[in-house]
Structure formats: C-alpha cells, structure tokens
C-alpha cells in the first residue's frame, strides 16, 4: 500500500481542460483514479457514455485525458481509452482483458495491463445492468467504477433506478399531486455481492485515505471488483458552489450512501456511519442544501436550521426508514463471510 503523500505526488492521467461542471465530483474521482493507476502498469480505460465521457472526450479536443509529455512508448505511463455506448463499458473491458491475457499467454506482451471500466449509474444500473451483471458473474479480472450521481445527468437529470425517495427529477417531478420519486432505490451493493463480485465497495474521494486503500485493493483483486463512487452532481442536485465534498461526507454520515467494502470470503465493513441513529447528523442537513429536496426540507428563517416542511413528515420518515432498512441490509451483508 502506497502512502497518501506519495500517491498525491503521482502523475494523473486526467488533465485539466475537461468541460465538466465546476466542482464536479466525477472530475475529482478521475483525478484520483488517474493517480492510483499510475503504478507502473499500462492501464486500459473503457468508458460507457456518461457525463464524464461526453465532457472529456469531445472530438477535436480530447485533451482531458493524457499524461502530458510522456510518449505512448513509455509503458509505465501509457494508457488507452476505449469509448463505447452506454451499457458496454464492462463488456468492452472484458474483451480488452481477454485479449491482453491471450497476448500475455502467447508471449507477445510481457507486462499484463490493468483494465478499468468507468460508467455512470444510469448507464451501469439502468441501461446496462445486464452487461454489468454478466461481466461480474463471469468473474473477469477488471475494476468497474460506477460514478453514482442518482440521476441520468448527461441527458437532463432523469430518474435512474437509484434515485433516492422524494427526489425531484425531470421524470419524477414535484407537483401538487406528486412528491418526487416514490420507488425505493435498487440495492445495488447487495446485487453485486449476489452476482459474485470479488470486491464490492462504495467509497467517495471525500475520504481520501479510505478511497486510496479501497481502490488499490480493487486493482489488486484477482476477480471483478465493482467500486461505486458517490458523486454529488452540482447541476442535478442543485446546490451552491463549494459544497460537493461536504455533501459527499454528509451523505455518507447520514446513511444515504455509506462507505462500504466487502471482499469475497471475508467480512465486510461499513465506515464513517454511526450504528446509533442518535449520533448521526440529521438527514435534513444533507437534504436541505439541495433543491431536489426543496419540497421536503426548508431553512427556518429564525433559527437558520434545516427543518422538515409541515405536512411532509410522512415522506421524510419514509426516507429515514429506508436509510435504516438499508443500513440493516448492509450490516447483514458485512457480517456474512460469504
């Protein structure tokens, strides 16, 4: 395990010049994934269509990816990028892995590369759930990063299967009659464990040390590892500048997307989330700054604290129940050494 101070001095393959929103968590994740994959091996990235792909690989200027002055012949710094359609990031990665293994077996290639698939939550869990599930099921030695921003951010903030309860999206709007999303989110962590992934984790770069540890472990894993990266979306969640990291931390501490890691055959762990509900921050603090929960939580002008709107207690209680229910599910999964 490399030390944090060494990792941050490495060269990232994600360069400035992307046209992502200011303060985008996906960009922060790419920076750190780019630094973590600078470990002396060639890396092959496969990208499905998602925000982080369309805004960094614009045709005349795919400048956001690259390692500056390094030539492609510099094997330890070299990397390749394959872009494919929405659902195909895991399957294309699988193909790249098979080809690399074949070339290594025949002796045509001496150093085996590492293969990393990047995908958004809509691409991976709605459109591409089939290919994700089958790739995990086949146990290919790749790392799949799913950048979870709870919506289809690229196409205009539509509902995705893991949009939280009550969230206002383009396709689950809040009107006089409706209260935003009413479908409880898919239990994607449990799903991946059931499919037989070698390592399943949910971790955000807001916890750098843990993020680095998990990703290094994922890169070393001999089976498929799936890492979900919660990425607060400044435009889709509609919050002010400079709150990305704070919301990522609050989201974890309130239980919306707890830090979680489980390796196959070992006990898992839930991090940075108090088992005791009384010790956790209130979920209103997480929901308040985001305008997608504006109809449920508002800022009290007198006290300056975020409060549940009168008449919306039932929905907020539903969210609390869902968080607790999922915490119990995750605890059960973590205590199992399957």
């Amino acid at each position, binding site marked *: 395990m490399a030390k*944090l*101070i060494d990792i*941050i*001095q490495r060269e*990232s393959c*994600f*360069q*400035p*010049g*992307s*046209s*992502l*929103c*200011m*303060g*985008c*968590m996906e*960009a*922060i994740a790419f*920076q*750190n994934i780019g630094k973590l994959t600078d470990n002396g091996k060639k890396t092959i990235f496969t990208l499905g269509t998602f*925000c982080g792909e*369309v*805004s960094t690989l*614009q*045709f*005349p*200027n795919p*400048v956001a990816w690259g390692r500056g002055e390094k030539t492609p012949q510099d094997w330890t710094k070299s990397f390749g990028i394959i872009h494919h359609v929405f659902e195909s990031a895991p399957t294309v990665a699988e193909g790249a892995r098979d080809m690399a293994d074949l070339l290594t077996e025949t002796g045509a290639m001496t150093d085996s590369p590492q293969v990393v698939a990047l995908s958004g939550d809509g691409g991976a869990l709605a459109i591409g759930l089939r290919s994700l599930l089958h790739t995990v099921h086949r146990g290919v030695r790749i790392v799949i990063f799913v950048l979870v921003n709870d919506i289809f951010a690229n196409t205009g903030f539509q509902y995705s299967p893991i949009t939280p309860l009550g969230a*206002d999206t383009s396709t689950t*709007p*809040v*009107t006089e009659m409706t209260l935003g999303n009413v479908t409880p989110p898919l239990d994607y962590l449990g799903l991946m464990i059931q499919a037989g992934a070698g390592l399943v984790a949910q971790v955000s*770069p*807001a916890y*750098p040390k843990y993020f680095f540890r998990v990703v290094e472990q994922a890169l070393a894993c001999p089976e498929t590892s799936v890492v979900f990266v919660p990425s607060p979306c*400044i*435009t889709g969640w509609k919050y002010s*500048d*400079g*709150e*990305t*990291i*704070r919301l990522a931390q609050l989201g974890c501490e309130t239980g919306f997307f707890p830090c979680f890691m489980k390796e196959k055959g070992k006990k898992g762990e839930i991090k940075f989330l108090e088992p005791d509900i009384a010790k956790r921050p209130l979920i209103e603090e997480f929901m308040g700054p985001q*305008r997608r929960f*504006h109809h449920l939580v508002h800022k009290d002008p007198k006290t300056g604290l975020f409060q549940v709107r009168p008449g919306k207690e039932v929905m907020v209680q539903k969210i609390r129940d869902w968080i607790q229910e999922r915490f119990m599910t995750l605890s059960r999964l973590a205590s199992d050494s399957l």
Partner: protein
Amino acid sequence: MEMICGRLEQIINEEVLEIRGDGRAGSGIVLTMQSIVAMAVEDPTLYVQEWPFFSSARKGAPTRGFLRLSRRPIEKSSEITRPHIAIMMDEGVTTAIDFAEGVPRGSIFILNTTLSPEEAASKFRLSGRIYTIDGDRLAQHFLKKPLGNISVFALLMELIPVFDPRRSRTRLEKILKKRRLPELLVKANGDLFEASLNQARFADCDYARPTDHLASPFGGYGELMPGAQSRLRLSRSNLTSAYARTGFVLQFGDSQNLCNGCGHCIINCPENIIQFHPDPEIGVRVTGADVTNYCKLCHECIAICPKNLFSEVRTAECWKVGPV
C-alpha cells in the same frame, strides 16, 4: 450610419427580426429566448423560431441562442450570422468568442455589464445603439445571485415594439413555474423583472473599424474531419478558466507558512491545478494554483482548506478586452 432601432416594427412586419445572444451555460440565455417565444405565441399573427446552441460542455461553457420573429412565415432555418440585435449576457464569454461577429453597423447591442454604453462600445469596438444594463447587480439584490437574464428580458420587452411589458411578468412567472422553481423564487424573479424596467442606459456610438468583427471566412476542412470544423464548436480552446464566475479569481496566500501538508486541496481539486513541491517536514507544501488557464472557481479548495489559505477575490484582470 443607419440606425435600425426606429425600424424594428417595420422589420417585424415586412422582414424577419433576427436576435442572437451569447451567454454561458447557466447564465439564462435559453430562458430569455424561451420567454420571448412564450410572449410571441400569445399573438396569433406572429411567427417565431428559437433554438439554443451548445456543445456537450457543461455549466459555464459558452452557449448561443438564436431567435427569429416576424409577421410573415419564417422560411430560413439557418444559424443567424448578421443579427439585428446582439445580446451579451455575461462579460466572461467575451474572452472565448466574439459576440459582435458579423453584426451590421447600426444594429442594436444589449450588454449585461457594469460599464456605461460609451465605455462598453469603446472597449468592444461597437458601432450602433448600445444598451447596457447592470443585471448582475439587480439580480444580486433580488435573487442573491448574479444572473442578468431577467433584466435583459425586461429590456427586450421594452425594445421590441410588438410586446407589452406590463403583461410579460405573468408570462415569465408561468414559464418559471413550468421549470418547477420554488414559489418564492418565482416571485423574486417577477419583482426583479419589474425593477429592471427602465434601468437600461443607451448611447449611439461608432467605434468599430472596418476590420473589426468580420465573420471569419470558411477556411476549408483542413486536417480535421468535417465534423470537427464547425464554427459553432465554441469550446475549442478548452481553457476552462473562462467558465469561472466573471470578475472573480482564486487567490492563494500563505505568507506565514501555515500550509500543513494535508493534501486535501490537491486530492479534491477537480482540475488538478494545485501547485506544490515535496517538503521533507510536512510532506508536500502547496505554493499556489494555475488560475489563469483552467481554474473554474468551483470553491472546493476554499471550502476544504483547514487553514483557509484559499480565497476568492475580485479582479480587474478578468475585465480586460477579449480577442475581439
């Protein structure tokens, strides 16, 4: 120089009034154009055509809006290259594109800026009637956000003779409600609209030299493929510091050597532009950031630094003349 501002009604009746707006993703150029359309469709004798243009670039990137308005059927559907009214929604875009490109002499310019019409005209070298409105300041008062779009919409309502500014407020609020803005915000926008009426200053100026603002001729497809050659691909330069809020810049000050080497700013900078050097004592010592080229001013480093070494400062630098 023939001014067209007296002829607007005639243009709408007999020709097609063409409006082009330059702004940034998030600066509200689309909302302005759509609000005009919503006003126009109320009048059954008006034909209207509107579409925004933007690339896959996100918040802060240059965007363009086109609008045609006429009492005759509109047969053109091309990009507007010689508009009667040119709008500049955000001063920051002038560093990336030329909002006055191809605008004939004597046309109307609408600028959302703190400058006076004469200052703006000499700075951007414009010829015609220049209207300036300080929409950012007005919006800061009502919305707590520097958004000039409602003020520009109010000015357009006053300018275009076929519309009645008194009825625009209800239409605007209807559109905002459709966009599912909270009730209070809709009301604040309505108030802002009314406060913006009669706030614009104007002057007739003639500063453009014959060589200024010429539409660049088609230079062939060159080495790149045809799709890459589109003049409308506005994000070509990819110097993303133009996405940042206009008039502000990130500043790093560590005169007392307070940096404790925690590295949080380096890890959490989306653009990877924090400059540092290894330090035997504390690991890494941050020395600054490359703010001139890529900083989008996302405020993450300001929020995360435990010693509050980063700050946002007003700058005169950002207001310099772009490559016009």
